[in-house]
């Protein structure tokens, strides 16, 4: 077991209105698992990721990662925890425009205790020949690869991906998913991927379906499908 959520809720207060973005979620995620969180807009996927990764705090409930209760950590401890254990990939890549691809990866490298070699990461995500380019000189797919390398270079135990293919076309998106799948196998990194694209769920070990802030279904894939074989929607 790596992650355990016990009765986790997140309530947003907006004036007189109360929104339950997460409603009593119980969940366990195992080490090295590739998890896809699926759901329509407003289902609570992003809140789920934010709370699970310590970017936001739950209103109630407990979250354990490797026996450590992150829901009780203060901001300083959470930062340390993220720094040592977690990696993030976003829909818009979030690269620093003034840095080259290599330098963007170096941003992650610098704060890790035992990071991977940067050149090795550049090769792993197949952009070694692009390493001196600035984000503005790269395609969306290449930028997302840099983003993945930046997240992975510090050897995170868990990689959180928020709609990583949301801004990409089918071919490029599949390439990114294939890369994530390979890295999951190669480095045994736990991946929690959020998407509204049901096709991606076929690649996961387990699929967590969400609606109205609740986990409505957990589906286990006995056989995972390669990224190249999924039909894009």
């Amino acid at each position, binding site marked *: 077991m790596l992650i355990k959520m016990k009765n986790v809720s997140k309530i947003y207060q907006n004036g007189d209105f109360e929104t339950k973005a997460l409603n009593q979620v119980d969940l366990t995620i195992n080490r090295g698992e590739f998890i896809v969180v699926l759901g329509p807009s407003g289902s609570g996927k992003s809140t789920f990721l934010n709370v699970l990764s310590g970017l936001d705090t739950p209103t109630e409930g407990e979250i354990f990662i490797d026996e450590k209760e992150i829901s009780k950590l203060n901001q300083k401890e959470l930062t340390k925890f993220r720094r040592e254990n977690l990696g993030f990939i976003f829909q818009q890549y979030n690269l620093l425009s003034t840095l080259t691809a290599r330098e963007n990866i170096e941003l*992650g490298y610098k704060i890790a205790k035992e990071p991977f070699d940067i050149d090795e990461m550049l090769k792993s995500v197949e952009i070694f020949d692009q390493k001196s380019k600035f984000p503005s000189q790269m395609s969306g797919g290449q930028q997302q690869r840099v983003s993945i390398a930046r997240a992975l270079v510090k050897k995170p135990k868990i990689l959180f991906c928020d709609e990583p293919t949301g801004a990409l076309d089918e071919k490029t998106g599949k390439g990114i998913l294939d890369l994530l799948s390979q890295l999951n196998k190669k480095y045994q990194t736990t991946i929690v991927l959020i998407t509204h694209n049901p096709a991606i769920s076929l690649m996961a070990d387990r699929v967590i379906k969400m609606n109205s802030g609740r986990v409505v279904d957990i589906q286990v894939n006995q056989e995972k499908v390669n990224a190249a074989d999924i039909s894009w929607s």
Partner: protein
Amino acid sequence: MLFKNVLRDFRKRLIQVILLAVIVILSSFVYVVMTYSVSAMKGPTEEYFEDYRQEDFNVIINNQVLETEFEILSLENTNNINTLSDLYHLDHEEFSVVISNRINQFENLYEKVEIEARLQKDIIFEVDDIQHTFRFLKDAVRINLSYISEGIKPVLANEIALTKYYAEANNISIGDSITLEDKTYSVTGYVFFPDYSLIIFGNEFIINNKTRTLALLSDEGFNELDSNLEVVFAGIFTEEVNRSQYIKDISLDYVLSVNLTENTMRSGAIYEELAGGEAMGVLIALIIAVMAVFVVALMISRILNDHKGAIGILKALGYKNYEVTLPYLLFILLLALPGLLIGYFFGYLLAEPLKNIYVGIYILPNASISQDINVFVISIVLPMIILLGLGYIVISKLLKKPPVELMNPKVIKDKPSKFKLEIPFLKKANLLTRLKHNYIIRNLMRFSLFLVGVFTAVFLILVSLSMVDIFDKTVNYHYNQIDTNYIGYCDPYLGCGEENVSHDSVIELPNVMIDDNNVLVVGLDSDNLYYPLFEKGEDITNKLDEEGIVITKGMALTTGLEVGDTVTMSYGTYELDVNVLAVQDEYITNKLYINREALSLFLTDGISADYYNAVYAESELSGDYQYVLNIDDLVAQSKDMSNLGNVMSYVLIVSSVFIGVVVMLLISSLSLEAYFYDISLFKVIGYTDKEIQTVFINSYRLYTALVFFITVPFTLGSFYLITWYLSSQFGMVFPMSLGWLDYLIGFGLTMSIFYISVPLAKRKLNKHSLQQALKIYEV
């Protein structure tokens, strides 16, 4: 919708809005307060100088009766007549003959001028152990006419008019009686003289209007006054001439020196003061206004960037450009107008007290402050037009883009060159170091605002520090070095009486010319007891044994003379070539020291080596003197001026740090907002607050320090220019300099600008949300 958005932004950026308001208020305030206070002085002063015929130049004349002049006198016995004062006290008509003769000589030889003799007498007396000086000026007929601001002109011999400041400071009102040298006078009014806007008597730069006053008596009263008479000539040009050249060409045997009014401290310094005060006010206001424009431009572009999508939607819906533009112009109006109005209000309110500070120094008539439409337009309407115009240009540029582009901003703009912006000497620095410098200089407008703001603050801090105790440095430093406490001035022709107190015999000879410079020559013995000379702290009194002169540092700065130079010293028809032997640590006016025996021989045509006309002593003198100067009293008299100067310096220091902090807070606030996404990204990746602070805030510390070191040589250069200007214009030297302690304090104050701002910036930094910013990432 946009109106609501705009108001929401107003609330969201409340701190920025407040900081901007402070800058806008300051800009308007500085301009209004300086303009109103100066103009309240300027207008009436110019009018008064013209109406009361201020002299264009003054002529220092030999106050001895010349040999040729004895020939035109019809007096039988002239044995006791040496000076014009002697002649005046003996026979007014004969005195007038000599003076008329001198004036005729002048006017016949030099055309296009009008000359009148200026007669003056001084009385020095003590009130509660403090020396008070009255300078009586005889009522003139053609030039430098007296102006009675309140009351009436003295008519009877026992009537007197004084300066209002002196009267009020000493609880004297019109109608009161005062006693001077056993004679009682009735105060009939308050008087101004156009040739004395500053009450400076003699060579000491001491301004204390509480103990020194100008006074007017009736002609009869003036004649009866039993004091030494001093005569100078006042001149007015009747036609346009090259004034500098004109006075240079004047050469008459009784003329010691000729000075233009604008180069005469007592009458001309006001011109520079008013022009300088106004220019300084406009300059500082302009610098602050430029900063305000930068801030408004930065804020507007930031807000427009946030509103791109909304503007795109409105344009797509068919809104006209002016409908979209209007709310933003309203935003600018809300940002700037209240601040400008508040600044104007306080500037108008405080102009009166500031004017009163001028009035405490300068003896000038002043008008009450009334509002002026021009000041209102320049301080409020003009800045509003500029800010609205600037805002309109920025908005129009954005509105030219098609709605689709506004609604779907590109993730990363195609401007790779912008992203490569690097600092050459940091090419090999590590990533975070390069990043933190890049974050600072990437936005040139923000960086310029930072540079201008901190530079202005540092410059003003350093100037203020150099002004602290400047009067002490100028006046008192020298007096603290010597042991002389009392100077007794003997009657120059009756000589000094017996003196039982231990003393040095000295010659003080004013109005000696060295090239075009009018200097005071002091004849001292090298083995004198109470008046050692120093050069850079080292005793050089024995230099007086050598042939030559020791000049003051003030004189060295004024004339450019250096050790080893040879100059001709001339006094009337006497001339002597002398070498400069050393430079004495003294800033007081143009002054030099020479061996007393040598000076005595020079003055007596080699007949006597024992002549002296003053005594210097440590203890109170017992003999009979024309008057005795108490050095402690002199130092105490400069205290008021010194205290006022220090208070103003401290106020300027605090204001400078305040300006710096406001700018720094704005910069940090604007840049933290601009780098919102990057900061969030750093946080998400796992960078600690301290590391993020290092990247986004702490680098300003280095640049603040750099600006300090860049400003230092600039400030020293400006000191040199100011010193050169004042010494060449007025023969006055202000030792504007900075010691190592000033540098240390200046650096500390500069860095305090950074350290005061950091906690607030840090708080803003810590408030940055982690996940929200990453949802829409734009560069």
